[in-house]
């Protein structure tokens, strides 16, 4: 059985700061593995631990060497990175097409991916990819069991949970409730050095120029409404902070 795990390297969501003059995020923002993708990775490893004969391939689009190394150290068997500026538009349709090309060439029984990325956050890559590969997709996955060739999956919905039955090949989009991603062991980190990471370009994937054509373009970031600057109280003791909070609430007629 082959499981492909899709991972992305994103700006650290807890460290993102904006450069208002550039209208973009500050350069040098630290990059981290997208959190949900690590839960997808962990799910793949757990399946492998349970049933043995499983190959895990970690696939990423865009700069992701550190993230892929982490996946290899966690337990992936090999990695594929698609590094091509022509595919870096941020248009989720282009992302899905490029990933679909990798997956068609690679073959798969199961695809695991984080529900959404912390930067784009559209949650659309899993279902869009499912359409391109013509396989079923289940989003918001919080529990997963594989038995007798079928998958029993629990997914979170707005007001509860659904239990779903389906057969691979399929795409499952992981939420963090699915598991607790392991930290790579020293042994895993050493082993990862000998595992192969293959780099591919759009041309390698046979993607025509129009496949990489983004239909979405992002303008500069700006502040929507020029609201009065907020007041930030620093170095005040708790009692005077409370005085000011109460004054604020009274002034704005909130109490």
């Amino acid at each position, binding site marked *: 059985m082959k499981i492909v795990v899709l991972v992305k390297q994103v700006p650290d*969501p*807890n460290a*993102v700061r*904006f450069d208002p003059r550039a209208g973009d995020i500050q350069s040098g923002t630290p990059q981290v593995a997208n959190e949900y993708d690590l839960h997808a990775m962990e799910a793949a490893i757990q399946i492998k631990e349970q049933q043995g004969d499983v190959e895990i391939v970690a696939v990423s689009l865009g700069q992701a060497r550190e993230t892929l190394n982490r996946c290899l150290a966690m337990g992936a068997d090999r990695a594929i990175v698609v590094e091509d500026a022509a595919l870096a538009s941020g248009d*989720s*349709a282009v992302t*899905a097409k490029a990933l679909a090309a990798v997956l068609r060439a690679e073959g798969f029984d199961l695809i695991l991916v984080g529900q*959404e990325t912390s930067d784009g*956050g*559209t*949650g*659309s*890559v*899993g*279902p*869009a*990819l*499912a*359409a*391109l590969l013509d396989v079923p*997709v*289940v*989003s918001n996955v919080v529990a997963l069991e594989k038995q007798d060739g079928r998958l029993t999956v629990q997914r*979170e919905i707005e*007001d*509860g949970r*659904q*239990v779903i*039955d*389906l*057969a691979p090949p399929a795409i499952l989009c992981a939420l*963090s*409730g699915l598991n607790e991603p392991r930290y790579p062991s020293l042994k895993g980190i050493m082993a990862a050095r000998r595992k192969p990471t293959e780099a591919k370009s759009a041309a390698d994937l046979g993607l025509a120029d129009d496949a990489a054509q983004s*239909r*979405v*373009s*992002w*303008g500069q*970031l*700006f*502040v*929507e409404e020029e609201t*009065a600057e*907020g*007041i*930030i*109280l*620093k*170095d*005040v003791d*708790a009692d005077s*902070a*409370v005085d*000011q*909070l109460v004054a*604020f*609430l009274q002034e*704005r007629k*909130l*109490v």
Partner: protein
Amino acid sequence: MATRRVWVWTELTDGAPQRPALELLTAARGLGEAAAVLLAPAGDEAIAALGAHGAAVVYHGDDAIYTQYAVEPQVAALAALIEAEAPDLLLFPSTFTARDVLARLAGRLGAGVIANATSVRFEGDRLLATVPYTGAYVATVTLEGPAPYLVQVRPKAYPVEPVGGQAEVRPVATALDPAACRVQVVETVPQVAEGPNLEEAEVIVAGGRGLGKAENFRLLEELARQLGGAVGASRAVVDAGWVPYSYQIGQTGKTVKPNLYIACGISGAIQHLAGMKGSKHVIAINQDPDAAIFEIADLGVVGDVLTIVPKLTERLAGR
């Protein structure tokens, strides 16, 4: 130029159209001729409600195949309908099912997509949407190329406006054999409705990781009670299991626009801000002076939430 045809993908709760669909009909009327697409068994009241909110046409697929997480049957029917009718734009609300249907449909059609829009307009043949990015920032995102465009819109970006009117109903044929549905819902386990109705609360006191541990949510409950408000939470603490998912505010949780939002120990990650940015007054209390939440706070206090919150509750109680 011919009138643009704008469709609103609609979901029902207890037989009535969900509020976000009615909001999107307001947006659709502003852009051209509004129609609703309703793929679900539905009664006359639901159709009438869509008409009364501005849908000139309701495309109705009256088939039980659509009732349970039916992404593939939905996409099959929508793709056939789009091919036959050639609309200019489809608007989707920000629910989980809407997201999955939109994304799968986009993959199938190769259509241009924008998610998380807070406003939508046309400029010539291009579509321009405002999309929040983080903190106080937004970007204008442009979509071009052949129609239809697919846009997912945040809740409460547009008002619900009953305009009176009657919709013409056009039946939609089911495009997928039930036997071809590869995803089968075996069971639905409803979550017992816990906690307050965040979406309607005028005051929300929300907590994040800065509270330290689950037990400290009690402090927020006491403050909320004093203010007649509800308690919400950031994703981090829902993921940690401190409070149920129904408390979650943010991109993957609830979108709220209360009169007063008090963020306690919340750093203000992108996803959280997306769900509460529209709040009228924001107070933030956080130990970390660099927390992003301060960028959008009207009043911020850099300090210990576990000391300040109980003191504030006490003062308000003794008023």
